């Protein structure tokens, strides 16, 4: 596999996940303003935040549980939790 062509989607494909049924992070539409949207699209290393018909959407698939979104966005813009015990990313190397 060429490293040059290794975009985030393919990199995430290398990871092991036990996906939770429910999303552990939720976008709070009232408090998540334009500036937060712009920041969240950039800081998430797994690109879990995307725009869908103008609205910010979080997809838990691929979340690395780093907390960068919580640290970068203004308070309340997202509801941030850990996924349920035993679910989420399962690092094999770390």
């Amino acid at each position, binding site marked *: 596999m060429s490293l040059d062509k290794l975009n985030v989607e393919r*990199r995430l494909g*290398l990871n092991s996940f036990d996906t939770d049924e429910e999303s552990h992070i939720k976008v709070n539409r009232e408090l998540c303003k334009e500036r937060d949207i712009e920041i969240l699209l950039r800081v998430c*290393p*797994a690109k879990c935040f995307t725009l869908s018909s103008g609205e910010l959407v979080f997809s838990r698939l691929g979340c690395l549980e780093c907390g960068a979104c919580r640290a*970068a966005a203004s308070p309340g813009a997202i509801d941030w939790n*850990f996924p349920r015990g035993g679910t989420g990313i*399962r*690092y*094999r190397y*770390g």
Partner: protein
Amino acid sequence: MEADFEAIVVGAGLSGCAAAYSLAKQGSSVLLIERGKHPGSKNVSGGLMYCHALHKLIPEFWKEAPVERHVRRNVISLLSKESAASLSFDTSRFSVPPYNGYTVLLSKFNEWFASKVEQAGGIVTSGIFVENLLQEGDKIVGVRAGGEEIRSNLVIAADGVNSGLAEKAQLRSRFDSGSLALGVKSVLGLPRKTIEERFNVQGDDGVAYTFLGCTSGVQGGGFLYTNKESLSIGVVVGIGSLVEADAKSADLLDDLISHPTVKGLIEGADPLEYSAQLIPEGGIGAKPQLYRNGLLLVGDAAGFVQNNGLLLRGMDFAVASGAMAAEAGKRAKEKGDYSAATLSQYESLLKETFVLRDLQTYRNAPHFLENPRLYSTYPDLACDLMERLYAVDGSPRQNLVGAARKEMKGKVSLVRMVRDLLGARAL
């Protein structure tokens, strides 16, 4: 109500394992609770562990632990778009026991460490998330996990940089974005023989690179470590600086990977894993309250990381703070008193060790590292100057001082540069 355990440790990372292992060794009944499917499954580090702290706890741990390579060569590399100006330090002294530093893959490592906790008599349970602390008056008396209440005399919060327990116990509020950095990393598989030839190392000797100038001006840098049969490559950037910049975190790693100098080092490597981790690098200025009745805070949850630009240390701090928390727990047990007054000995113990001493020594480093010129102006300047020294194309030559002045023109004044250099006293 009687306690189910003398101590409950939340989080089977390095600090949690160190605490639980020490407590079990002392003969205390201890429960170690991990939210991941197995210990290590939620743990990420850049991958360079300074050995002294764990060697003290488990002498010659490298003989049995899944360690990678002991680092004998450290390279600091200043990158511009197309060039690299590097300084390399190689010593055979780092290649003999007790080793200075080992590269590790933390998931595998902590799986081993948690098995040591069990061997010592501790109970380790995985896949369970600790939702809250149990409180009676102003005392912490256990945890609520998986819908159950488990009681203990002492709770040690080792639940990492995003620690929910530290916040729930009001020992600190969230770390602010200015004191947090984001690490983004890939593990790349490469045959042992290729690593030895390419990096000019024998046996289990290894190399650690630190890169500056590879982050599009965002505060931070990059790293590349050799493991036995893989490489760990990543970038670490300040969240505050990343927010203000016009950069995407994932792209910064791509930029490093595609740099012409770095590219040659990872040629042919096979991506194995992609990871990310927040790092609390606010230093002593961001230190939270470390204890209250029945509760101690250790490792990343307490913000025990030290960054001076060249060295980013967290793992030895995690191990030592875990061990010190266990020592404070032992004294509390002897006294039969787990009040904040008794547990405050934890902080006194830390002040006698490198944990709080080194954070104090480098108290001004976070401010020094905010200087944006460190991340683009100076690496560019170093590369341009070296190019001027080595490029011979028949045009008239200039002496070194003349060349340096010419390169600095319009980028940085001499006065500013001297001032920045003096600022480096913070390191």
